[in-house]
Each structure stands twice: as structure tokens, then as C-alpha cells.
């Protein structure tokens, strides 16, 4: 049985539906990527699952963690899951930390809540966690304030805080987007090594396909509130079948292709208040037929493996350009 199982999760704000029935399973110790552009619902999926959306959001469907239902669960029940079983880190670490408290106090708070540690035991554990996420001289820097750390270090502190409850699953929502390239590489490396050491599962939410393929086993691509393709990373990135997935890959400039013209996905993401009939991607899709503008495709298992929501998936096994090894 998978650790977390999401079924037909739907979210609406003020009567506007932004999530149209998400099915997703996360196995124990698995790293799953959630890819898509802004507004596609990748963050909302997990905020809804953990009951973190504002009151005006209408959430329906089912989110089970080891069989226990989270949707419409009592606050006490949610509290025993959040932070302890499932922890979450966000894009902007400096705004997730409390600026007026020392980082040590913020980590020990988490240790007290989730593991009942107090006093010197909590402090020693906080130092161990800071050390584990690569903060140099953790024993002295534990008494510093968030503004005394750089952006990359703040993200490390956030990760230490998330690990404080020994979660089985870490939801990382664009954890490296606000960081510089070389620091991003450090954080991706850190997340991978923590997973290796602790066996923790991870959901990695990102618009950066490269980062997702670096740290995930499996990934789902979302468009306009739906999952349009899901597969293991090798197949998804090797031969994407959904025209949108393919479009995302083709739009990334290729380091080895020099000044070749880019291939954008024409048009723009549809407004959730005004979704096109049929497949939401049809107006931007080169393969769309009249059938696509009338009916919405379901996410279906493919013969070659993986699931795709498309009436005309790309069956060619032509390799992607970035997987080709080019020796300069």
C-alpha cells in the first residue's frame, strides 16, 4: 500500500475550480516530482492535502496517509500528521522563518512539539540537525537570527526544521527556485543525501524540469489543474508522450545547440474561470483535432508504461535532445 494516496482531489476558490480531480500515490521512500507552470495547481494539491488552504477554499476528494483520511479530519488529527509524518518546505526560506527568534529556538520548538524534546537534549539535537544540513560551526550559529544567514543557509535551516519531526515524507515546494545556480546545486545534493541516509520519501514541486530529473524517481506533469502525464523519470524525460510535456522540453534552450531558434509553446495558459471545452491544452496543441476540443481526455495507462491524458499521444520513441551526449 502506498504511504500517501490522493483520490479525485478537487479544489475551488469562490466557485472557480482550480484543481479538477487529482489522483496521486506516494510510496514509502519514493521521490516524486510535480512539474508545471505557475497556476497549474501543483502547490495547491499539497496545501489542500495538508489542510493549509484558507477557509474559502472548497476541498473535496480523499487524501489518505496509511489509510487515515485527512480531508475534513479534526484539527487534532491533522496536527499529528503535519510536521510529524509530513513536513513541508517552501520557495522563500527567509519569509518562512520568524525574523525575531533565533534559529535554534525555532528548531527546538519543532522538536518539542513533535518529539517531546526539551532543554539541553533539544538543543543538542538541533545542533546535530544543523550540522547534518551542512551549516558550518552549528554549535555557535544556532544562536543567530535568520537575517544573519544567507538565502541558501536559510533554506538549510528550513530543511533542518522540517527534519526535526522525523517525517516520513518531505514536501519541497520550489525549494531551490530563489537560489543561485551553484547554491541550488548544493541544496539538491543535500536533499538527495538526506533521502539516502533516512529513507524519507519526497515530493519535489518545481517548474524546473532539470532539477526534478536530478532528484526524483518518478514525476507527474500538471496543466490547468490536471495531471496530464505521469511516468518514471527516465521514460518521461527520455520520450515524453503528452504534447504539453514535449512542448515544455522543447522550450528549454539547449546548451549544446548554440543559437538555434527556440520552440515555444504558443499561446498562454487558460484562465481557470474560463477553461476551454474539452482538453484544456487543445488551443495550444499542434496535434489537437475536433475531438479534442469537444471531449476531455482521462489519464490512461499506456502500453509502453506511464499514464497520459491525451487522445493523440506522441508514440515516437525519438530520443530527446538533452539526453544525447555531446562531446565538445
Amino acid at each position, binding site marked *: 500500500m502506498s504511504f500517501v494516496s490522493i483520490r479525485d482531489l478537487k479544489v475551488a476558490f469562490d466557485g472557480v475550480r482550480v484543481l479538477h480531480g487529482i489522483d496521486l500515490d506516494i510510496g514509502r521512500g519514493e521521490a516524486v516530482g510535480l512539474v508545471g507552470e505557475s497556476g497549474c495547481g501543483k502547490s495547491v494539491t499539497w496545501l489542500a492535502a495538508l489542510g493549509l488552504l484558507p477557509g474559502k477554499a472548497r476541498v473535496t476528494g480523499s487524501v489518505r496517509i496509511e489509510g487515515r483520511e485527512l480531508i475534513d479530519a479534526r484539527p487534532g488529527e491533522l496536527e499529528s500528521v503535519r510536521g510529524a509524518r509530513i513536513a513541508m518546505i517552501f520557495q522563500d526560506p527567509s519569509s518562512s522563518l520568524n525574523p525575531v527568534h533565533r534559529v535554534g529556538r525555532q528548531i527546538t520548538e519543532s522538536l518539542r512539539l513533535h518529539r517531546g524534546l526539551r532543554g539541553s537534549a533539544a538543543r543538542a539535537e538541533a545542533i546535530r540537525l544543523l550540522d547534518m544540513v551542512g551549516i558550518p560551526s552549528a554549535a555557535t550559529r544556532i544562536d543567530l537570527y535568520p537575517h544573519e544567514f*544567507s538565502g541558501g543557509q536559510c533554506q538549510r535551516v528550513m530543511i533542518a526544521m522540517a527534519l526535526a519531526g522525523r517525517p516520513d515524507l518531505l514536501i519541497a515546494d520550489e525549494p531551490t527556485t530563489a537560489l543561485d545556480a551553484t*547554491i541550488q*546545486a548544493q541544496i539538491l545534493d543535500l536533499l538527495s543525501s538526506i533521502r539516502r541516509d533516512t529513507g524519507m520519501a519526497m515530493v519535489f514541486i518545481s*517548474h524546473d524540469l*532539470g532539477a526534478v530529473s536530478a532528484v526524483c524517481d518518478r514525476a507527474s506533469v500538471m496543466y490547468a489543474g490536471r495531471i496530464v502525464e505521469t511516468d518514471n523519470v527516465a521514460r518521461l524525460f527520455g520520450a515524453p508522450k503528452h504534447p504539453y510535456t514535449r512542448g515544455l522540453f522543447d522550450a528549454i534552450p539547449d546548451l549544446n545547440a*548554440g543559437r*538555434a531558434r527556440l520552440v515555444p509553446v504558443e499561446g498562454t495558459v487558460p484562465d481557470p474561470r474560463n477553461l476551454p471545452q474539452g482538453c484544456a491544452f487543445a488551443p495550444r496543441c499542434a496535434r489537437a483535432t475536433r475531438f479534442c476540443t469537444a471531449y476531455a481526455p482521462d489519464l490512461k495507462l499506456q502500453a509502453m508504461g506511464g499514464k497520459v491524458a491525451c487522445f493523440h499521444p506522441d508514440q515516437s520513441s525519438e530520443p*530527446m535532445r538533452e539526453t544525447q551526449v555531446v562531446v565538445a
Partner: protein
Amino acid sequence: MSPLLEARGLVQQYTSGKSLFGKPDIVRAVDGIDLTVTRGEVLGIVGESGSGKSTLGRMLLGLETPFSGEVLYHGQPMPAPRTEQWRRLRAQMQLIFQDPLAALDRRMTIAAQIAEPLEIHGLAKGAEVTDRVAALMARVGLRRDQADRYPHELSGGQRQRVVIARALATNPGFLVCDEPVSALDVSIQAQVVNLLRDLQEQDGLTMVFISHDLKVVRNICDRVAVMYLGRVVEEAPSDSIFAEPRHPYTQALVSSIPLAGQGLEGRIILRGEPPNPAARPSGCAFHPRCRFADASCTVQVPPLENHGGRLAACLKLPRAPRLAA
């Protein structure tokens, strides 16, 4: 090729955080930069936050007066800000920012904002303005019916098209783009990059393209300068700098680009923290994070020297192993 723009020994410093009794902290954002931009060329400036790339861009445009050094445009020194000459030069040089919503006036229609530079510089009158605005909108791929819309009614990519149309209104010869596509989604980013390339090729625009996104820089630039803590550490044609980065920092930067379909193997993970201009390390500013640094790197500032057709500033360069891309 004749240089359109030349920067000589550019330095910019800011005074910050005056404590009650202590000396004010002096932060050198740009620390001695020589650059030449040839007519019709696209020069990329890459570097991490705090490397001084945006400050450099503003000085190249004459929007900031350098602490020392000078910028020559068409061989002439940059006139003092707010003078008549300086204002005339504004029409020839334009800047495109990262955040189009911040660059646009929320209370003005798209058409009015594109018309503004034409009116300020007295380039068109009456019906001529309407025609020019329509032509500019068509050039950047905006629909005619969007003329009366307000910025919040457009998508991010469309807003950036408006900013580009407004920058092109005065027929500038020189354009500085500061992270112009960083705020856009991948599929839209490619649309705007293609647009900038088309405009550059059609008009023979000279462009300085500032970005932390190396993949976009690779696609649009002829030549690239890599900055680290206010200095250029490597400068080369974009074909060679990405295929064979020589400076250890450039090597780490190029190897840190996550490529779709590739794992973490073979990447150079830098130790240490990102550069802080307020606490510049002695000698080579990169030495605390460098794999090849030794004692000499901590005292000696490496000069930017020619190494077989490219410029690089590294004492260990002759011995640093070459890295195939």
C-alpha cells in the same frame, strides 16, 4: 568592428550600515571592469546575486555615475545625468527589467504607455503616434484590440512584450536587458527570447543581456562575461565558454545547470557560501570556494589575462584541468 560602448576601469561603491561610532561599511559592487561592446553584438553578463551585474548594466546606460572609471558611447564620454545631452541619449539607450508589472504604470492603457516615449522625445505627433504605436504592437506580437487594456489584464509574457515595445519606440541603438525572462514560465520564456532575437537581428541592435540563466544566455549571446564579486573572471565567445569553461568558477557554474534527463552525477558542487560583497575575501575573491586554490590565491589578485583567445582571471589557470562540457 567599431566599439559602440567602452567601459574603462569601472568601479561602483556604496556606503552602507553606518554604525554609531564605527566607520561606515564600504561595499564595492563593481570593482574595476573593462568591457567593450561592438556594434550589433549581444554581450551576455552572467553571475550570481551580488556579483554586481545589474549595477554594471545601470552604469553602462549612464543611469548611475560610476565612483571611478568611465563609459564611452560612440567614443564620447557619458554626459552628466539630468543634463540636456543626457536626456537626448536616453532615447538611444533603453533598459528592460525583470518584472514588467513594476515597470508599467497600472493606471495607463498599454497604448498610452507605448506612446509616452514618442511624446517625451518629440518623435511623433497626433495621428502619427497612433500609427507608430500600432506598428510597435504588431512588431512585438500584441493584438490590435489589446491597445486599450491595462497591465493587470494581460499575462506576464504579454506585459513583457509591452515593455519591449515601449523600449523600441525611440529606435534605440543600445539595449540593456536585465533578467528579461526570469519571471516568465518556460513555455512563455521561449516566446520572448525568440522575439528579442528577431528584433535584434532585424534592427542590428546592440544588446547587453544580463541573466543568471545560462541556458538563455547561451541561446541569445555572441559573447559572455562571467562576473564574481564585482569583477569579470572570464570572458569569451559564447560557443567556447560553454563548451570549455576555463575559470574554476565558470566550470562550477556551467556544471551546476540542471539538465533535463540527467542526474546529479558529474556536477561540481561548490563548497561554501555565495559571495558577499560586504566581506570580500583577500586575493582572488573566489579562493574560499575554489577546488584549485592554494596559498598564493589568498594574497594575489589574479589579473584578467588572455589565454588563447579568451580572457580569464585565475592564477591556477595554466594548470587547472580542462573540463569538457
